[in-house]
C-alpha cells in the first residue's frame, strides 16, 4: 500500500541538529481523515496511530516507510482505542481499549497471537501507556479522583524481551 509522501524537506538553523520531514501519509482507508497518538517502534520500522474509522477511534499499525497496514487481530474491536505504544521490533503492541464500561490496558503479542489484559483495581482509570522498547516494563498513567499518577510495572515474568537483532541479553542501551 503506497505511502503518500508529502516530501518537504526543511533545513534548520540549529547548531547541532538538522532534519527532514514527511507526512505519515495515507492509511489506505477512505474515511480516515484524522490521525493521532503516534508511536514509533524502537527500530523505527513500525508506526502505530489512532484513526477515525466508521466514526470510531481505531488503532492502525503500519510498516515504515512503505505504509503497509498490518492487522491487529486481538485488539480489533473494543473501540475506542487510544495510547498505542510499541516494543523495539514491533512484536508487542500495547494500547487502551474499551470493554463494556471499562478502559483496559492490553498488550498484543504479534509473534504468538496472545492478548495480555490488564485490569485495574478500584477506581483507577488508565489514561496513557508507554512500553519500554525491550518489552520488559510498562509505564501506566492512572487517574483517580482527578489526580494523575504514573506507575511502573515489571513485565519480565510475562513477556520475552524484544531487543535489536544481535543484541545480547544484558546489552541494553544505557
Amino acid at each position, binding site marked *: 500500500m503506497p505511502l503518500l509522501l508529502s516530501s518537504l524537506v526543511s533545513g534548520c538553523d540549529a547548531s547541532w541538529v538538522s532534519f527532514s520531514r514527511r507526512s505519515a501519509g495515507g492509511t489506505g482507508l477512505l474515511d480516515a481523515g484524522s490521525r493521532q497518538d503516534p508511536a514509533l517502534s*524502537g527500530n523505527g520500522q513500525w508506526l502505530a496511530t489512532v484513526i477515525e474509522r466508521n466514526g470510531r477511534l481505531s488503532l492502525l499499525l503500519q510498516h515504515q516507510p512503505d505504509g503497509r497496514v498490518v492487522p491487529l487481530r486481538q485488539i480489533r474491536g473494543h473501540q475506542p482505542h487510544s495510547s498505542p505504544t510499541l516494543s523495539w521490533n514491533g512484536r508487542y503492541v500495547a494500547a487502551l481499549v474499551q470493554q463494556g464500561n471499562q478502559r483496559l490496558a492490553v498488550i498484543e503479542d504479534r509473534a504468538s497471537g496472545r492478548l495480555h489484559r490488564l485490569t485495574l483495581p478500584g477506581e483507577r482509570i488508565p489514561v496513557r501507556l508507554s512500553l519500554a522498547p525491550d518489552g520488559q516494563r510498562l509505564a501506566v498513567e492512572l487517574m483517580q479522583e482527578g489526580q494523575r499518577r504514573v506507575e511502573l510495572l515489571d513485565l519480565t515474568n510475562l513477556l520475552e524481551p524484544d531487543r535489536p537483532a544481535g543484541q545480547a541479553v544484558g546489552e541494553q542501551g544505557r
Partner: protein
Amino acid sequence: MRSCSALGHALTTMGAGLLLTGCLGSVPVPLNGFNQQLEQAGNSREPALSDSWLAVISGRGGREQVLLLNLARQRPVPLPNLNRPDAQPLSVAVDNAGEHLAVVRQLEGRTELVLYRRSLGTVELLPMQPPGVPRQVSLRADGRELAVQVSRNGLWQVDLIQLR
C-alpha cells in the same frame, strides 16, 4: 475468556494491586520502590519509557515540569535549560540512551516542539512545516526519528521527522 475475567475480578477483589490477567495467568510486578520515589514528585502524567529511563511531566500546585528518572538509580537527573517557569509541557518522549528528549510545550502563547540534548543542555526548536500546532510526540529509541501529532486546519495529522 470469561474464566479469565472471573480470575481477574477475584484477584482484584483480594486487593492484589495492579493485575495483569488473561489466559496466561501471569501477573506483572509493580516496582514499588521506584513508584514511591516518583510519587514524591507530586502528580505525574504523559509517561515516556525507554529501557533505562522514564520521562514524565510532573508537578504540584499547577506548576509542571519535565522529569527524567534513571530507572537503575531510581532518581531524577538534572535537565539544565529545559524547564522554564513560563513554559507548560504537554508531551514528552525520550530515546533509549536518555540523551535526547522531544518536548511539546506551550510558551508565550504558542505551542512548539523542541528537541533537548541532555549532555549539552541545548534546546532546539523544530518548526512545524506546513505550519501547525503540535500535540503528542514519540521518539524512536535510537533518537534518529520522531513522530508528532499536528493540528492543521482542524484535522489531526502525523509528521515523521528524521533527525541527524
